[in-house]
């Protein structure tokens, strides 16, 4: 046990002391939100700053001051299409909307054509859709008026409905559920496990290979059992990943608390306001902050966090040991490629099935894949935010433990032989032979 700890300590310290670890750990939680912020910022800013001119050539006579899409200045004119094109060139306008004469007297007619948009560069799909919608709305309005129906009457015919969803527990307690948030959490945690398996798995493999190629491994195994060395390595690298994860949770948690309170001007204030039902007095930002807090209250944070750490570690042990075995079997990282496929395949299968699982979190595929240890960490994390029966969660966890004990045992048998084999052209048959070989 002491030996494992010494190996663990070395693996942990050499990694944590690296500058690259510090940078990746501290910057990732800052960079990701920054990128999102920058995208959103430019996305919204774009529309406001560029006041592109658009000429509306209206031959129907219905469109006066109809368009109001933000980011554009509209100028209305009449005349022939040629006049419009000339005006567009003269005024250096961005585009020209051409509206032909429209016959709205014929009640049977519901589709109109001849409309066109001319522009110097390709307009975005969304802009075109917006214009289309504006035109059709206007024509509908005109047709409504002509049909003699009153606007007021029409409005009173509206019946808006919103379907609120609740989760009902066996005890009859109900809690508000939110499919969108569940989707985001399921996807996010599943994806994080996926990334960590790859990043830290290959670190284990690299570490095993380094010891083999630098030839220090024989010195080490004269003091430590190969299994202890392998376990120390898997645990040490895992501890690095775990440290990184905890720092991220704290940083992201802290940052989002700060973010939400900046938005709402102090969460306590929002809470108070909520309690007093003064939502009318709240600013828009405060309202948003309140919504976010309300949302967070709907998800079982404790359960998700605990399951995440459990499945994260389980997945890591399961795949980490296999990565160690591959590292021990080969002499260079290039040779490792051929043995990576069986490791990578189930991970890829899991991440690809995740989209179907998120659509139908309690379907047959979801339940099956969340039981198989090779896919369960990613798939179960995708399911948990939508609610998973406790017995399924427990069974999946037990199977995962059985799974990683199994792969560690298997990997250990290959590792103990592999690390002492130099210059052997390894194939699956040889690995199978190592597996059964006596030490």
């Amino acid at each position, binding site marked *: 046990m002491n030996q494992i700890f010494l190996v663990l300590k070395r693996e942990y310290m*050499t990694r944590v002391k690296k500058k690259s670890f510090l940078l990746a750990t501290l910057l990732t939680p800052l960079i990701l939100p920054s990128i999102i912020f920058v995208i959103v910022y430019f996305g919204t800013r774009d529309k406001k700053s560029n006041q592109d001119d658009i000429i509306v050539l209206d031959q129907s006579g219905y469109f006066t001051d109809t368009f109001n899409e933000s980011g554009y200045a509209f100028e209305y004119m009449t005349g022939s299409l040629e006049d419009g094109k000339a005006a567009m060139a003269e005024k250096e306008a961005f585009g020209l909307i051409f509206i032909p004469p429209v016959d709205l007297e014929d009640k049977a007619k519901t589709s109109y054509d001849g409309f066109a948009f001319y522009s110097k560069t390709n307009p975005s799909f969304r802009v075109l859709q917006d214009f289309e919608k504006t035109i059709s709305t206007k024509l509908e309005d005109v047709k409504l008026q002509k049909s003699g129906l009153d606007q007021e009457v029409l409005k009173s015919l509206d019946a808006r409905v919103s379907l609120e969803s609740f989760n009902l527990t066996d005890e009859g307690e109900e809690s508000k559920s939110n499919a969108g948030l569940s989707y985001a959490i399921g996807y996010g945690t599943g994806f994080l496990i996926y990334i960590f398996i790859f990043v830290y798995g290959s670190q284990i493999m690299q570490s095993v290979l380094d010891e083999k190629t*630098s*030839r*220090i491994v024989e*010195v080490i*195994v*004269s*003091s430590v059992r190969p299994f202890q060395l392998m376990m120390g390595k898997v645990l040490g690298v895992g501890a690095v990943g775990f440290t990184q994860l905890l720092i991220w949770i704290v940083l992201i948690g802290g940052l989002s608390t700060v973010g939400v309170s900046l938005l709402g001007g102090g969460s306590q204030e929002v809470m108070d306001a909520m309690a007093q039902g003064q939502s009318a007095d709240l600013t828009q930002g405060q309202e948003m902050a309140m919504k976010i807090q309300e949302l967070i209250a709907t998800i079982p944070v404790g359960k998700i966090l605990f399951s995440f750490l459990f499945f994260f570690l389980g997945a890591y042990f399961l795949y980490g040991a296999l990565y160690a075995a591959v590292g021990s079997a080969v002499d260079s990282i290039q040779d490792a490629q051929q043995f990576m496929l069986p490791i990578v395949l189930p991970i890829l299968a899991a991440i690809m099935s995740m989209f179907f699982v998120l659509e139908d979190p309690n379907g047959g595929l979801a339940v099956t894949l969340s039981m198989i240890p090779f896919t369960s960490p990613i798939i179960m994390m995708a399911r948990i935010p939508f609610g998973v029966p406790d017995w399924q969660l427990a069974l999946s966890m037990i199977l995962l433990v059985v799974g990683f004990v199994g792969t560690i045992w298997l990997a250990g048998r290959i590792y103990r032989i592999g690390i*002492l084999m130099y210059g052997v052209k390894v194939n699956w048959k040889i690995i199978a032979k190592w597996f059964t070989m006596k*030490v």
Partner: protein
Amino acid sequence: MNILEAHHVSKSYAQHRALNDVSISIPKQSIFGLLGPNGAGKTTLIRIINQIIMSDEGNVLINGEKLNPSHVKIIGYLPEERGLYKKMKVGEQLMYLAQLKGLSSGEARIRIKKWLEKLELTEWAGKKVEDLSKGMAQKIQFIATVLHEPKLLILDEPFSGFDPVNANLIKDEILELREKGATVIFSTHRMESVEQLCENIAMINKSQKILDGTKKEIKDSYRSDKYNVQYKGKISELSGDFQLLETKNIEDDMFEATIQAKAGLNPNDLLRELINKTEVHSFIELIPSINDIFISIVEGGKKS
């Protein structure tokens, strides 16, 4: 008292028998030569002693006890395939390896300091191994092997890859450790490199032990009773106990000859015979080197 005894040790890999019924005993505080060509099974035997692998049959006793994990701490092993963590600092690396051998960090720190001073490497303690010259890295490797003051030092091809200066330095350190009570096993296929150092020898060829004993016994039993003599003036005739195998004129009336003496006679008998007949300038008994003995056994084995 023997520090190590191996009894009828055998080990097989898939189709290949790496060791076949090998027994050796190594007296305390001796220098033992485990000799044999590449692939003979020396490294397999050493790995068994180091508990890196296990024997299929037979057993190994250290100080009379069956091999067990506590023995790891009294063995210092310098493998043939050796290396260090390139990215790790010298001091941290030695500390790590010493702790793996069960040393406390405080004790290890004192010994590392002492050894680095002794081999004039103190200023390199904070440097990474990749920044060291090959010779310095070899010295560090040696320090790592002996830091825990092993009672049994196993050196596999110790001088391969060492430059002559370092090889001598390491040789002196090894002899000093022996003086302090350590037992040393040299494993090598370059027999001439350890011939002067070893007191006891075992030879392994093709997985089997073909010879063992003290160096003196072995050499005595392989004496050929041949002498090389340089002398002035021709020898006309020798008594029946001696036979001139080969003579060669070196210059003017100086000759060199190889003389075969009858078994059981000692060098003085030949000297007495020669003094009466010629003027002796040099007189050497042709004792076979361990390497010669090895070759003669292997070739003899082939013939039979």
